[in-house]
């Protein structure tokens, strides 16, 4: 590919806008961090119950660079998340498609589905603890359930909302069954499907943290890290864990879902590029 200076000029201004928006994003955290640090330095609040940002950063350094425990916790969490989420994604897409394509199945299951959705995912954890044991399987089941309902629900909605004329046109041109599904229904419903995947990964991530906290046999995981810190009243570790949960949840959305959007609905021109 030939390199043209004009594109690099556009790129430079694009990078400048990105830099400005990144700075705008970080700025409030800096303000709060600095004022928090100043309040902590005055000694008005006990350090044990509210450590200063510098102490939290120091703890973060110890856990991440020092002994690397943080990465082991995070790695275990991401491992469970990926298994549970992939299961939720495949079964949610398949089940959602079946529900959307078949009216009788939909009439049978959709009231049951909306009843089950109303139960908080975390409330199933005790059931899994009884039936699946106190280890990894319970956590993965919670992750699965967290993502499954959102993905199923949005897949059904997406396929139902596909323009009937599009389906008729495809049918006239001879597309039926799996072919109609793969080349018309799925692409046409992908905006809603991706909404489901986005909600799903958020729910899965939250369910994961709760599941890890409640499963007694689980040793590693970011949720477990926070839970264990309670026994030493180590508030800095809790803050590190909470920030990692927020940040990882944010990054999962920004990296994974944004990538998915870029290679599908944005490329197909279904939504404006961001």
């Amino acid at each position, binding site marked *: 590919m030939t390199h043209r200076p004009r594109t690099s000029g556009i790129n430079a201004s694009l990078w400048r806008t990105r830099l400005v928006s990144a700075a*705008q994003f970080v700025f*409030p955290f800096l303000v709060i961090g600095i004022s928090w640090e100043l309040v902590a330095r005055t000694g008005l609040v006990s350090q044990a119950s509210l450590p200063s940002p510098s102490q939290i950063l120091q703890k973060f350094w110890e856990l991440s660079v020092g002994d690397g425990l943080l990465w082991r916790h995070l790695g275990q969490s991401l491992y469970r998340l990926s298994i549970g989420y992939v299961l939720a994604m495949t079964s949610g897409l398949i089940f959602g498609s079946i529900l959307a394509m078949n009216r009788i199945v939909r009439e049978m299951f959709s009231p049951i589905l909306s009843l089950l959705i109303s139960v908080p995912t975390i*409330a199933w*954890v005790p059931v899994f603890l009884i039936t699946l044991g106190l280890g990894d399987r319970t956590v993965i089941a919670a992750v699965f359930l967290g993502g499954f309902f959102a993905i199923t629900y949005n897949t059904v909605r997406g396929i139902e909302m596909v323009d009937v004329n599009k389906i008729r046109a495809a049918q006239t041109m001879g597309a039926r069954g799996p072919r109609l599904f793969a080349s018309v229904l799925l692409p046409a419903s992908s905006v809603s499907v991706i909404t489901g995947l986005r909600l799903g990964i958020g729910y899965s991530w939250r369910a994961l943290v709760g599941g890890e906290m409640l499963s007694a046999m689980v040793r590693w995981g970011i949720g477990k890290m926070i839970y264990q810190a309670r026994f030493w009243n180590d508030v800095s570790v809790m*803050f590190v864990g909470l920030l990692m949960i927020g940040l990882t949840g*944010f990054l999962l959305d920004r990296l994974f879902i944004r990538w998915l959007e870029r290679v599908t609905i944005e490329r197909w021109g279904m939504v404006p590029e961001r």
Partner: protein
Amino acid sequence: MRARSWILPVLLVASFLALWEFAAHLKWINVSLFASPSVIVRSLVKLHTRRLPEQSILLTHIGASLQRVFVAASIGTVAGVVMGVLMGASRIIYRFFDPIITILMPIPGIAQAPLFIVWLGFGDPTIITIGAIAAFFPIAFNTAAGVRSIDPQIVRAARIMGVSRAGSFARIYMPSAAGHIMAGIKLGWARCWRTVIAVEFVAAASWGLGYMIWDASEYIRSGVVYGGILLLMIVYFLIERLLLDSIERVTVRRWGMIQS
């Protein structure tokens, strides 16, 4: 047509429950892990009647959870609407708090529990605080979106016609954003309910539906665990139908802001 749409799902659930009951009676499944439907109902009834003259244990659990949800969600609603209006009205405030909300909102309530237990101890203060935080975020977010979507021309027109700055909030911002605010309140209350139940697992001292389910699971009383989940469905259904829908009916729907 309306009646027919209920036949299939009811039939499905009924046959599933019958099969479950049947399998439990024939000992195909481990009944101490999968309590049969009749055992579930019986253990709920027992929980209700055991100490009946003085108190019903079951209703006390439900009442404790509901009380926490109402207090927490009310605090979260007021704080969320105030914050949302501020964020919607001022660009600077919006720019400042939007990143903070984006990062803090995905943190689940149960993960905040250890921190608040250190600060506030076990029981109501911790549960209500985390519940209020959970309700706060979606309400603030939606209120801000609603206020930001108001056409500035309308505000200008009203100001020219002599509405004061404070008056424009009551007369323009709040009614125009009401649809968004209501959507936020629905999300926020649902989130608050889920969070309160979850935090009760780890932070409740002795009462609450979450505590009831958790306590039963530790002693493998599976009848109470499944019964508790059934109650969660019923209570949430009632909150949504009786409370939120009726609030919606007397406000935004009557004002014609959303389609009924």
